[in-house]
């Protein structure tokens, strides 16, 4: 969100900046979108997890795993007074088991999430959209040895060999690092384990349903509402409507005492809209928010009406909806009949 700028006057900014941000977000998310057709026949949208988020999640898990191991070691050492021989064996076996089973256990128990993934809103899902089977979870975690721990060992080995002047195994190292960097080479960001198991990692931040701002009357009677002509409403498109929604929501979410911080921004947006849609009547300062809210409602009603007739005006540069022509209405009600293939 744009923060209010104390120096009013020469900024056209809020809208432009928001606009640019929104379209950039849209572009990025478009690239990461993956569709999955539900059994009901509706494509559902999932967003691929970013590399950074996945590395961070892995680091968190690694730390937690280390914590478990330390806890295990300390409790074994202090709780049971075993002879050192059995102790070492037990510790080795325990550490081995924890390090192999940590990911498998959590992904099984938490439906494709480990603590790190849960923290970063990531989730393992079946690429084809079916059930995430235990087999898939085990398969995607078996290769961790080769993807993470082997390259790590090779790096260390090369590091020491470099100092001891013996021939380092650079080829193996390059290959191992390539394998661990696999997610950055394919468009679905799959690591080797994901390839085997037919899974992918998606990001799924929890969304909250906010209030419908078209229902925000701002304590004014409907009869006093601002009125717009269809021509005035045919200028903007969905993109601008979303920016306006953003601004109105930000203001509505603020406590009353802080709302005046946005007065300037609202003024500028209002002036800009008035100029664009050719709205001549002067708008009193205390009614600016009301004006924008009314404009939002009217514009949304107009664009949604277009949608009902199958036309979406994407933004202000796309051509406006001219109202239902008879032919368009006919097309919508009468889908073209396909001739059955002659056999």
């Amino acid at each position: 969100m744009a923060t209010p700028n104390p120096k009013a006057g020469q900024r056209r900014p809020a809208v432009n900046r928001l606009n640019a941000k929104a379209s950039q977000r849209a572009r990025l998310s478009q690239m990461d979108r993956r569709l999955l057709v539900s059994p009901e026949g509706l494509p559902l949208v999932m967003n691929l997890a970013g590399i950074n988020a996945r590395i961070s999640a892995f680091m968190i898990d690694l730390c937690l795993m280390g914590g478990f191991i330390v806890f295990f070691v300390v409790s074994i050492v202090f709780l049971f007074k075993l002879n050192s021989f059995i102790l070492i064996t037990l510790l080795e076996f325990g550490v081995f088991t924890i390090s192999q089973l940590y990911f498998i256990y959590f992904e099984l128990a938490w439906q494709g999430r480990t603590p790190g993934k849960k923290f970063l809103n990531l989730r393992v899902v079946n690429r084809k959209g079916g059930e995430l089977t235990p087999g898939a979870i085990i398969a995607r975690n078996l290769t961790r040895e080769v993807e993470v721990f082997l390259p790590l060992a090779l790096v260390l080995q090369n590091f020491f060999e470099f100092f001891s002047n013996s021939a380092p195994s650079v080829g193996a190292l390059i290959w191992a690092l390539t394998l661990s960097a696999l997610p950055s080479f394919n468009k679905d960001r799959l690591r080797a384990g994901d390839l085997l198991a037919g899974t992918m990692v998606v990001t799924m931040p929890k969304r909250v349903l906010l209030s419908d701002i078209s229902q925000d009357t701002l304590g004014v009677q409907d009869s006093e509402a601002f009125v717009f002509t269809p021509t005035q409403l045919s200028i903007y498109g969905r993109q601008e409507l979303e920016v306006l929604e953003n601004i109105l929501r930000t203001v509505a979410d603020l406590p009353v005492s802080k709302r005046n911080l946005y007065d300037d921004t609202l003024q500028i947006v209002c002036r800009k809209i008035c100029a664009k849609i050719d709205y001549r009547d002067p708008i009193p300062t205390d009614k600016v928010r009301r004006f924008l809210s009314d404009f939002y409602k009217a514009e949304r009603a107009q664009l949604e009406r277009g949608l009902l007739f199958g036309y979406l005006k994407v933004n202000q540069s796309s051509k406006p909806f001219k109202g239902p022509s008879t032919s368009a209405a006919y097309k919508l009600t009468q889908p073209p009949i396909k001739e059955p293939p002659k056999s």
Partner: protein
Amino acid sequence: MSHTLEKSAPEQASAQVVSGDGGVVTLRSANFRRGREKSWQQLDDLVSLVEKKGIGSLTTQQAIELPKLYQAEISSLAVARNTILDKNLAEYLENLSIRAYLVVYGPRKSLYECSAEFLLNGFPSSVRALKRYIFVTACLLLLAVLVGFVMVTSNHDNFDLLVPSFVSDDRNYSSTTNDLLKNEIFLPWQGFQESFIYFANTLFRHNTAVCLLSFGLGFAFGVPTILLIFYNGLLLGAMIGLHHDKQLTAEFLAWLSIHGVTELSAVVLSGAAGLSIASNIVFPGRKSRYQNLAAGGLKAAQVMVGAVIMLFIAGILEGGFRQLIASTPARFIIGLLTGVLWVLYFRLKSSKPAHGDA
């Protein structure tokens, strides 16, 4: 454009917009939302509950409600996508429906059911599915054993070349027949702790690491897998060669067979799993490499998990029973018995139909 889409109804007062000609246009999307918001909220609560505490935490009533609410929500989404321009609402519905989808069509089997299914059906059937690769790997291993044997028996110096000292453990051509008998083949019983706990554990971890490697290295087109299997075969062949020259062939093979049948089977299985991955990458066939890997990878991984279990058993046999049973015929019999048991097990066909993919 003089039209009034819907005449106002008194209870929908706030969903109306005054249109240009003074008429009133109802904001349909607001009405749409008002009618359905409650059921979305119910679904959201149920999904959050399941995400937090698992599907078992639902009451019967809730479990009945969940799919109904889900279907209602999915249909809301289908309508909303084409008629509603409230961005927050659209994002919320998209997000809720995918979360609900994962709950409704999520896994329904418990861990116990899965393990039983794996042992009774998954593992044996995956092994059968990979039998071509298993055959190839076994042949490779035999070839390597033969090569190792010939190399060592033809030139004794090759033994030290092939077998690193941490494997040979003072066993080489300078040791006498007696040494080998006393320190290796009929090593006295070391006591329960030493054998069953310490030694078995070390062997298990070492072997598992090797097998995981030969499986995972299938990704490098299988070349390291082949090398690893071949090298292990060479070592085995060299050891057999050494004992052959000391006139201990039968004793050594008996000593080996008690655990080796299980252990070598596991090694072959993991190598075969690695090779099947490699062949999915190198020869994708009709499907794409991604689809191929996803289809074949699960089988390979099941074989791998089974191989780890086999290694666990082999570790116990090797660490404990091998020294406990100090008789060559008895060792042979046990080795043979384990072999027969494994073959019978891999032929096991579950009468129950297997669950589908999704």
